[in-house]
């Protein structure tokens, strides 16, 4: 723990030692400005991803093909809203308000995961998202349960439990399609074709091109590099695709006997950066929908505030 009375240089050193020793940092503790800033960026970006991520899957709630699937999907999208809330709360412990974070999302200043800028064109996309996108998210997020910042680590434990449930549901949906009619199998294959590469890109740019990684690793916010996590996901997903009898859309995919891992073909990082910059197929629509929901709800939030003020005034009058 860092002593408040220490000189600035010593504080930074003490902090680094504390974190290096696998201790948790709590909101009341002293922390370097950069550490707090990195966390706010990462946690709020994560929260925004949960909120925007409700849209692509939410697109199929009213068209889910059975009542059971409808309930599962609705509950999943609802969980994402819940994750958004825990994460906003975790970020709020770093003295940033939810209003500010939401404003940054809507102004385009804050980013969210690029994967949600792709469209869900068929029902199989709901399965592919659960299987691949939640699958990738789990690989990314399990190490975050050991993140040095206590509130984030604790939020992630709960998020990961729910995500792994979602991943299994997505895989089970894909399994039903892959064992179904020829049209359903084709639907599953088409979804994999469209979601594979964006899912692989979810781990972020390659290590040599990831500006924040080294410092985040030193601060134990991040535990594994982007490329290591990506490889872990690919190895897992290849086996799962085999179980589903659908083919990963990569002619260069092959098992490397030497490393024991699956090697992929070239990842299209130009596309990744274009989507990050807001040129994904649904980027504008996702943002427009979020702004519209926020604006359409303004009168409700204003009403709740006005009513609360009236109630307070009435209570004071009674007390007086």
């Amino acid at each position, binding site marked *: 723990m860092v002593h408040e009375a220490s000189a600035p240089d010593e504080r930074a050193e003490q902090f680094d030692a504390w974190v290096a020793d696998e201790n948790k940092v709590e909101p009341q503790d002293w922390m370097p400005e950069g550490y707090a800033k990195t966390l706010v960026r990462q946690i709020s970006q994560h929260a925004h991803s949960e909120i925007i991520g409700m849209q692509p899957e939410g697109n199929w709630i*009213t068209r889910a093909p059975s009542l059971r699937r409808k309930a599962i999907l609705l509950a999943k999208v*609802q969980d994402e809203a819940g994750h958004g809330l825990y994460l906003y709360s975790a970020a709020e412990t770093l003295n940033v308000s939810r209003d500010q974070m939401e404003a940054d999302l809507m102004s385009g200043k804050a980013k969210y995961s690029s994967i949600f800028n792709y469209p869900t064109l068929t029902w199989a996309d709901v399965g592919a998202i659960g299987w691949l996108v939640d699958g990738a998210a789990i690989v990314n997020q399990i190490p975050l349960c050991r993140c040095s910042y206590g509130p984030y680590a604790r939020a992630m434990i709960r998020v990961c439990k729910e995500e792994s449930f979602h991943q299994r549901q997505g895989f089970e949906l894909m399994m039903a399609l892959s064992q179904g009619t020829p049209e*359903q199998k084709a639907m599953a294959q088409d979804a994999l074709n469209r979601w594979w590469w964006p899912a692989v890109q979810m781990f972020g740019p390659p290590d040599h091109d990831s500006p924040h990684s080294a410092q985040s690793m030193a601060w134990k916010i991040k535990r594994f590099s982007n490329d290591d996590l990506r490889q872990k996901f690919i190895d897992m997903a290849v086996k799962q695709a085999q179980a589903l009898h659908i083919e990963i859309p990569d002619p260069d995919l092959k098992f490397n006997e030497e490393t024991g891992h699956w090697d992929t073909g070239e990842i299209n990082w130009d596309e990744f950066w274009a989507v990050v910059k807001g040129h994904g197929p649904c980027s504008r629509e996702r943002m427009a929908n979020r702004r519209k*929901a926020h604006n359409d709800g303004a009168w*409700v939030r204003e009403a709740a505030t006005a009513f609360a003020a009236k109630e307070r005034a009435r209570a004071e009058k009674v007390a007086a």
Partner: protein
Amino acid sequence: MSKVDPLFETCLRLGDTALVLGQRLAEWSSKAPTVELDIALSNHALDMIGQAQLFLEYAGRVEGKGRDEDALAYHRQDFEFRNAMIAELPKGDFACTMVRQLLFATYASMFYERMTASTDADLAAIAGKAEKEMAYHARHAGEWVVRLGDGTEESHQRAQDAVNLLWPYAHELFQTDVVDQAMIETGVLPDAAAFKGEWLGEIEAVLKRATLSLPEDDWMPSGGRSGQHTEHLAYLLAEMQVLPRAYPDAKW
């Protein structure tokens, strides 16, 4: 009406109303005024869809022709649906959704509370679950109707417009026909007319706190429970049923 099995018909009425209202509530996902309300509305939608599954599954068993809840939900035409019309009206703004929830859930909590004593064990069991859910929906909606009614000028106007729009459709919930009468006589269903006064009292109490008023009772549309719907239902079903209809041989 001689060929209609009143118990089957009853299960459809209860199940379809829950399903159609659940579908409308689900439309709020990712569009609610706050993240907290998004979660709450999804919860309410999930409760309704859960009730629909139970009622329609039972309907299938009563009918005895091998139709399960999905066959009934996805492979019937609009005129075969038996939901009350108040459930199928568009979700409208947040005031419409909350006023509808208040009117319907207050009714449904009273109805299911009594239905727990049904002579039909399956319906009594479903009512035991549904009663608690609907009581919660009614309380949640009541609190919001008060906030909106007594909030800002705009929210008051929107809430009053919602009451004016939805009020006429509430009466259908209390109408009884030969199907209901057969079920009431055998103790399967409670008589809704018997608690209309109590229901009205609760609604008026909420509206009074909300500084809202009830419109005059003049137009009282009905017909949903016998298959005569508004123009809105066919669109709702076209969307909901699209996949099972496009791929009739598929299992999902």
